[in-house]
């Protein structure tokens, strides 16, 4: 039976051409923070490592879906072809994504009756209030004497 060994979203995933080793940059485990919406995300990746038993089928029809706050943003058919191997990797690169609101961002690939999903929270963060010049702390001069800012 198909099994998911590892799954995670990241800002970028690189696969070495010679060694086929995978490197992930900016793994999104603690959510996405936005000052305002809509939020433009240049690239998001979703990587899934699959395992199968030798007696299982070699090919599966999968579907990738991306949802935000319950609304579907994208849906793509993704075939899984193991060949003669018992492991397979699926990498989905989403180029140019606009997040219109806060909510739960859900990545999901369904294949062979197995679901590989991962959810992260997209939330708003507040910026600190700007400090007015009059209320600014004294600035030390080069001689070590403090001076009031102009």
């Amino acid at each position, binding site marked *: 039976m198909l099994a998911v060994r590892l799954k995670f979203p990241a800002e970028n995933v690189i696969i070495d051409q010679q060694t086929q080793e995978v490197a992930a940059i900016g793994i999104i485990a603690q959510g996405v923070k936005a000052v305002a919406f809509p939020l433009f995300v240049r690239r998001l990746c979703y990587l899934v490592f699959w395992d199968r038993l030798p007696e299982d089928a070699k090919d599966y029809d999968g579907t990738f879906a991306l949802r935000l706050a319950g609304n579907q943003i994208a*849906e*793509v*058919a*993704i075939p899984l072809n193991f060949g003669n191997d018992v492991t*397979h990797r699926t*990498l989905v690169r989403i*180029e140019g994504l606009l997040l219109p609101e806060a909510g739960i961002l859900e990545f999901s690939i369904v294949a062979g009756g197995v679901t590989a999903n991962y959810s992260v929270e997209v939330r708003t963060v507040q910026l600190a209030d700007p400090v007015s010049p009059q209320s600014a702390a004294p600035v030390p001069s080069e001689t070590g004497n403090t001076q009031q800012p102009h």
Partner: protein
Amino acid sequence: MIILSRQELREIGAIHLLANTPPSLVEALNKTRFVTSLKTFPRVQVLIDDFDRLTSRTGRSSISLGIAYGILIALTLHSEADSSTRVCFSRLSWGEDVVEIARSMRESTRVVVVQGNTTIPHHSLSPSWSTGTASGSTLVIPATRS
């Protein structure tokens, strides 16, 4: 068995002599007609026996070592299954590294590029359609508003 010309034998020997790292050895040998043919050779046991014979010799030349590494790579990447565990690859100084590198080359990967929604929606988003694709090529989904 696969017949090699003198030129091919010299090439395999040169690859073994000049390779300074296991990845470069694997990459160069994997491109040879010799290894390419062995990966689909129907009698895997013959390859295993040849590997044992070549690696149990006391006197080894660059050509015999190159052939041994080539057989090891072919056994690992064989079209039937990974048969590297059926030989004692530790007889070769880079045997373990070569097997590890070749095994990582077996791992199949599907990369799909999806164009995300870059239009500002007035309403909730909904999927449009997807195009069919050949293995490993690009899928593009333009987003539409509901």
